[in-house]
């Protein structure tokens, strides 16, 4: 168990390297340029270079800062994002910790990241950081609701909070296909709200480079800043993995009822490839958002949640419940 855990952590770091590289390349190709291509083959070692550099940078703590909280905050942020990784099923029969309240666990732990961000912003004793942290508080607390509601719609349909059971319930078809329009709406809301929850553009108001120079991490340097970057990418992976698990069937292969030959071929593809394929599809979509849209303003961000996403997801829950009771889904 411990060895698996350690391996998983190492895997996460490698994954983050890959995600960083992927982000830069996606950005570059969307922006009609080449992107990193000097360091290592095709620029693949770029992120390694960045990380090594950040490791050997001077770690500054500003004079006015609350030293303890300032140094603690990045660890809290990284630890919370790593905790969420635990219950994810990476492949068939490969789940580190199949807790029976998986969905609840995921949604509750992931909202704890805001504490780290608030801590970072407050302890920096920088006004930009403080504004960034306050924005983050308002933002994450609001969007938590939509995420919760969209996850609940699947909990209602599958009747379980355990992630493995939710995956099992999709053996005959993913929820996004089985659940008709209401689940598609839930899925879209989940993607939007989780983009906001992990502070990625167009919802990156906590960092908002043009407004707040760096938001909550303005004063962070070197290793501690690297940890914020690390947690950003782990979060990105986690929300995509959760979305893939809950809406797209996790490691379940793609099956079409009745076409046995086709289904058989699909079964030959390893389950981990199914899982990562789906996850990376969602990661790509979230990156696509980032490199296309301008940033929202803070009041518009809250408007979007309270005026659009929340009412829609509430009505949606009603529909899903009705669907579950009447058995209208496949």
């Amino acid at each position, binding site marked *: 168990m411990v060895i698996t855990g350690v391996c998983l952590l190492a895997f996460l770091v490698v994954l983050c390297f890959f995600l960083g590289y992927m982000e830069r390349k996606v950005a570059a190709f969307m*922006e*009609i340029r080449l992107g990193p291509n000097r360091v290592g083959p095709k620029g693949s070692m770029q992120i390694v270079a960045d990380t090594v550099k950040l490791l050997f940078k001077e770690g500054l703590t500003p004079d006015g800062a609350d030293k303890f909280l300032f140094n603690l905050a990045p660890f809290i942020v990284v630890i919370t994002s790593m905790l969420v990784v635990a219950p994810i099923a990476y492949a068939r029969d490969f789940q580190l910790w199949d807790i029976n309240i998986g969905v609840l666990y995921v949604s509750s732990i992931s909202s704890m990241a805001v504490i780290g961000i608030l801590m970072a912003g407050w302890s920096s004793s920088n006004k930009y950081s403080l504004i960034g942290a306050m*924005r983050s508080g308002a933002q994450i607390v609001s969007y938590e609701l939509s995420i919760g509601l969209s996850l609940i719609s699947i909990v209602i349909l599958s009747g379980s909070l355990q992630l493995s059971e939710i995956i099992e319930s999709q053996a005959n078809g993913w929820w996004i296909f089985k659940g008709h329009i209401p689940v598609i709406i839930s899925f879209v809301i989940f993607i939007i709200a989780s983009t906001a929850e992990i502070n990625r553009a*167009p919802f990156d108001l906590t960092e908002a480079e043009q407004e707040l*120079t760096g938001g909550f991490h303005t004063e962070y340097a070197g290793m501690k800043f690297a940890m914020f970057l690390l947690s950003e990418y782990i979060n990105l992976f986690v929300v995509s993995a959760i979305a893939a698990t809950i809406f797209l069937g996790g490691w379940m292969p793609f099956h079409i009822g009745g076409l046995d030959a086709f289904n058989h071929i699909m079964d030959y593809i390893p389950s981990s490839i199914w899982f990562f394929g789906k996850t990376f599809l969602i990661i790509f979509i979230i990156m696509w958002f980032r490199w296309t849209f*301008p*940033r*929202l*303003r803070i*009041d518009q961000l809250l408007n979007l949640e309270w005026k659009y996403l929340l009412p829609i997801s509430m009505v949606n829950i009603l529909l899903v419940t009705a669907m579950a009771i009447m058995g209208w889904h496949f």
Partner: protein
Amino acid sequence: MLLGQDHITEEGEFVINMGPQHPATHGVLHLKIGLDGETIKKIEPHLGYIHRSIEKMCEQLSYRQFIFTTSRMDYLSAHINNQACVLAVEKALQVEATPRAKAIRVLMAELTRLASHQLWWACMGLDLGAVTPFFYAFREREAINTIIEETCGTRLTQNYMVPGGVMMDIHPNFQKRVKEVLKQIKEKAHEYDELLTGNVIFQQRLKGVGYLSKEDAVSYGCSGPTARASGVSCDVRKLFPYDGYEQLKFDEILNTEGDSWARYLVRLGEMKQSISIIEQLIDNIPEGDFQAKTKNVIKLPKGDFYQRVETARGELGVYIVSDGGATPYRCKFRSPNFSNLSAIPKMAEGAKIGDLVAIMATVDLVIPDIDR
């Protein structure tokens, strides 16, 4: 980054200092902002972080030399700044540039305006958090820069205008290249709309933000797209034509809304007008000399001379006071950005921090032009 010394703000007010080094200020502007939560209560601009004493310097430079310093003021409309200087000198000498030189000047000025607006559009997206528009706009801007470089020799601070005409004749490829670039820009124009103009987030960020009434625009001395978006007709090319603008057909883009969205639309419209001006001229460059004969050492008659031109940001005035010598006695540049900046505190009253960024982006300040 934070220079904390506040004498204008009240006790207990949350004051943040935006600048001198801040990504949204496009240079080294320092805005002291009094905040109530995220809402801006008051703004005080602090200038001088790039005050290079150009006006003092001009008093020591000859009339051929002082032109080059103006390229460094509003470096995005370097050609147009230079044009203002040479026009002022020509007005004083009562020399007129040759028809060919005039056409070339207008072409260059409009290319510069186009490039400048493209850079503005790029930074507009960047300021509002969309990175990709930057690259699309710079693709076209680079094409224009290449043309300008081919003829003038440099990309940004050209120093191409000389009293009496232009320094060199246009490059033989000039006309062909310009037509290619215009074609390219027209083909890619829809991308601007798809990426930003039509985008709902973008519209929401700009509509109703940073309102400036017509009266205020006039009183604050605003000019250029900033004033035209408030309905003030102030295009120098129309009101006080120079270098043959009176013979060209183009519209002065006016909008009465006065908000950031109006300023955005006015600038987009101006890009189209610039293209139309270039198209009218590119095949009709008169033959002849590119430079009228002027004396080697220029001495202006006694008196004061004011020449205004329309740069990409508004009305630039060059005010030369001459005592009859070979150098200006006093040289004052009435810069459009200086006046436009003074209206920003008015526009940003009651706005959010994010709005301030949007306002600054639509007013499109170039700080060295303010500080000179």
